[in-house]
């Protein structure tokens, strides 16, 4: 099986080739489209491939280059978009039946930024319905598979985006991360995944799951590529009131800065959290040692609140989701199941339109916000959130970045956790605290587990600490064992 575009070139290199005219954007795109045509029927990374739009965008980039105009920092680079990012006139489904037939009349701000940067938007990637899940098995359109081992999940909820990058369908992808939904699939697919500081990237046009936790971020094959993409999408947006303004960090500022003298704290509670597999722990320790060898000051540090996040998260996120998803009522757009009266129509539409996990979280959240329970659940969860922030801030007084595992295990088999929601929720135990704190964190591939599948190491940083986070991530990448082609994936055939 021929997969010409796969991992052949980073986004940075490709953009350089296109800019210099050595390669056309159209040719680069066609390689990706060929890879998708060949392998996506099995991987199912995409809900929708934007063939015509992508070809038009690539031609436009080539014309600019021919005319001697600036093609932009991502000129000619195919980028895949998680299918919860609104694209004007292109189906945007959240992998849910409830949005059946809906075409957004507008682009998400990140989509506008990508177009302006010359990116070629190649398609909409599969996700757990409304980003609720850790395996991309909760998609109404069927699961995505891990391109490194088709019997395994790619993680989730941005599993389609992680799989697309890992499979070489696109050098870059955007995901969204509410409790680990970029970092965990990045770890499971052996790519780089970043959750930026809350407010660094506009959420306008990101279909909300949990508004106070959601953040859009990049997936890429390298740390430098992820930085390139983040710098394109970051920045103030007047359409998002929670979007930060003022001096914002550049991800690419110190990629070559090394780690000499950088203070790195390995978070005890994350390293020893419930369910962390021995091979994952081993890679984390090796990464810490390698950083120490590279000149970093590495210590263990206790951040007790780092793992209290899971229960707070599973109150706050469903509570916000129960409200965010109320609008899918069959009145204005998407699915409508006709019924006798408005109440029955609401019920029938939502019963048919939402999958089991979404319904479970709507019910959890509705309960948590109910009169008489609000303070015990939502109120208490917000207090835990404050404690988490305090604990992290106190750790960052002594450390520039923190280190932990990204996911407890390597990619698990399809169906392994679908019957046990709590086991699935535990996939996010190491990633959730950053969302609750609003801090940035990213996953960098570091070796493999006993099964030969990739392991991710997570670099955590204080709010707006993207520069140092990427600096350390680049160092982790530099000292990581060489990535070996997996045995069970699409490349093996």
């Amino acid at each position, binding site marked *: 099986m021929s997969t010409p575009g796969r991992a052949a070139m980073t986004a940075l290199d490709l953009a350089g080739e296109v800019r210099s005219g050595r390669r056309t954007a159209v040719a680069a795109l066609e390689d990706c489209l060929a890879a998708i045509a060949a392998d996506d029927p099995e991987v199912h990374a995409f809900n929708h491939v934007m063939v015509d739009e992508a070809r038009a965008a690539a031609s436009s980039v080539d014309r600019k280059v021919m005319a001697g105009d600036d093609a932009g920092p991502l000129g000619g680079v195919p980028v895949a978009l998680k299918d*919860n*990012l*609104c694209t004007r006139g292109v189906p*945007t489904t*959240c992998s849910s039946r409830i*949005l059946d037939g*809906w075409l*957004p*009349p*507008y682009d*998400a701000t990140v989509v506008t930024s990508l177009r302006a940067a010359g990116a070629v938007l190649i398609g909409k990637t599969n996700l757990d319905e409304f980003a609720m899940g850790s395996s991309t098995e909760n998609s109404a359109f069927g699961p995505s598979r891990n391109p490194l081992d088709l019997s395994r999940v790619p993680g989730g909820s941005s599993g389609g985006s992680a799989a697309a990058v890992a499979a070489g369908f696109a050098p870059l992808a955007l995901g969204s991360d509410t409790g680990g939904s970029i970092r965990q699939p990045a770890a499971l697919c052996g790519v780089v995944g970043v959750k930026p500081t809350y407010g660094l990237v506009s*959420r*306008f*046009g*990101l*279909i*909300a799951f*949990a*508004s*106070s936790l959601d953040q859009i971020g990049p997936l890429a094959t390298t740390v430098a590529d992820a930085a390139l993409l983040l710098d394109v999408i970051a920045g103030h947006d*007047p*359409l*998002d*009131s*929670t979007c930060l303004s003022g001096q914002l960090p550049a991800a690419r500022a110190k990629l070559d800065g090394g780690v000499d003298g950088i203070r790195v704290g390995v978070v005890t509670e994350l390293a020893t959290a419930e369910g962390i597999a021995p091979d994952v722990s081993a890679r984390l320790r090796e990464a810490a040692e390698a950083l120490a060898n590279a000149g970093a000051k590495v210590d263990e540090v206790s951040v007790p609140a780092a793992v209290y996040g899971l229960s707070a998260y599973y109150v706050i996120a469903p*509570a*916000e989701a*129960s*409200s965010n998803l*109320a*609008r899918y*009522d069959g*009145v*204005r*757009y998407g699915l409508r199941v006709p019924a006798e009266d*408005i*109440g029955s129509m*609401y019920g029938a539409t939502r019963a048919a339109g939402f999958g089991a996990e979404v319904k479970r979280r709507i019910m959890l959240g*509705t309960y948590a*916000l*109910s*009169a008489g329970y*609000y303070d015990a659940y*939502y109120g208490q969860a917000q207090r835990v959130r404050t404690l988490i922030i305090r604990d992290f801030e106190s750790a960052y007084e002594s450390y520039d970045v923190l280190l932990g595992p990204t996911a407890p295990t390597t990619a698990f088999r399809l169906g392994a956790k679908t019957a046990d929601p709590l086991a699935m929720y535990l996939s996010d135990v190491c990633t959730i605290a950053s969302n609750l704190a609003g801090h940035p964190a990213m996953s960098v591939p570091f070796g493999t587990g006993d099964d030969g599948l990739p392991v991710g190491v997570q670099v955590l940083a204080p709010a707006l600490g993207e520069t140092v986070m990427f600096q350390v991530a680049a160092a982790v990448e530099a000292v990581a064992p060489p990535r070996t082609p997996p045995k069970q994936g699409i490349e093996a055939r």
Partner: protein
Amino acid sequence: MSPQSTEWETVIGLEVHCELRTETKLFCGCRNAFGDEPNTNICPICLGLPGSLPVLNRTAVEYAMRIGTALHCQVKPSIFHRKNYFYPDMPKDYQITQYDEPINVDGWLEPPGGSRVGILRAHLEEDTGKTTHVGGGGRIHEATHSLVDYNRAGVPLVEIVSHPDLRSAEASRAYVDELRAILVATGASDGKMEEGSLRVDANVSVRPSGSSDLGTRCEIKNMNSLRSLGRAIEFEAARQIELLEQGGRVVQETRHWNEADGRTHSMRSKEEAFDYRYFPEPDLVPVAPSAEWVEAVRAALGLLPAERRARVASAAGLAPDADAVVTVVRLDLDSLVMAAAGVGADVGLAVKRLANEVAAEMDGAHHLDPDAFCQLVLLEGRGELTTAQARTVLKHLLDHGGDPRAIANELGFEAMASDELGGAIDEVIGAHPDEWKRFVAGEDKLQGLFIGKVKAATHGKADLKAVAALLQERRKG
């Protein structure tokens, strides 16, 4: 105390929803306008489309601050909450509103002649769309289908909640009347009840007179005018009293005022009691107006109705709650009073003309030239026009405008020279020698006869006050 002998007191608190007259909606750039084609002032944000986010309208915040300041509220840092419930005219199936941290708290309002009513809060929120039920005479249960217009969805509202300080339908009407005047004076609202830019809900309960406990209240909705507000409160209070006197119990519920049958009707059954699941709106950040901004809003606030009444009253030597003063300010005619005061005209006379003749013809009042009005009051005050003539000229001014002196001349109202008047009086005296002797001898009631004769002889041109004065002069010799 037997039930029959119980005296009842009605306790009323009002919730007034006031649409702000901002150019654009509360969270998006769509036009805020009444009466446009349905679903023309809409966008992804006010339609609550997936992925859209609200951005707070600064002018709406400023208008809310103006209202709070005018109501003597404390203007505070505030946050927004989501009020969750399903309704087709609410695009997101939640309303963005303020809950336990509203922008304005603890104010008061004092209607003219009434007592002070406490304001609990005046908070910002978004309006819903408008549902029209088609078929079945517009009633939801009989409708074949419903149409929704989202033009109003996201229009900024300030909800003003009073303490339960009102004790009668009349006081409630006076409260809303004064509140409306204040809202209009701040420039934040057009105060039009008929267009729904002012909507009033009433919480009504009754209790035995002298009791300090509150009875169980009912919330009355759907009153479209001050008149129906008064009627609804009176009906509801009577209904509750009758219920209690018969040994029944008031059920806390929302009731719908039906203008046609003059009754309130239960709207929702107990099973449908709503739990709105309020929680802080995560898509918006706290609103924390700076002290400078709050002060700038206070400083820029124009004169409020109470201040305008005080100004008119003081200039005219009347009480601030005198009917004529209240009327003149309510009808926005007080600038004419102040203009008259400015040219040294009789201010009391100006107030009288405005509260009577001008108030009766408000269409003309909008075009009334202040200079012309002042001239008229001066002419009447100097006795150059009689009261009757002044009214005629004023009517002319209201209908056609013009110069009062020219109009008077045209109508043959030129003032009688005093020698001309004196001549007329002497003629009348000469024609009635017996009556004149009796008048001089002290028969005062004959003055009326002489005034009447002079009036007839001069064809009504004589200033009757002047006639009386000349008669007295001649009587003394």
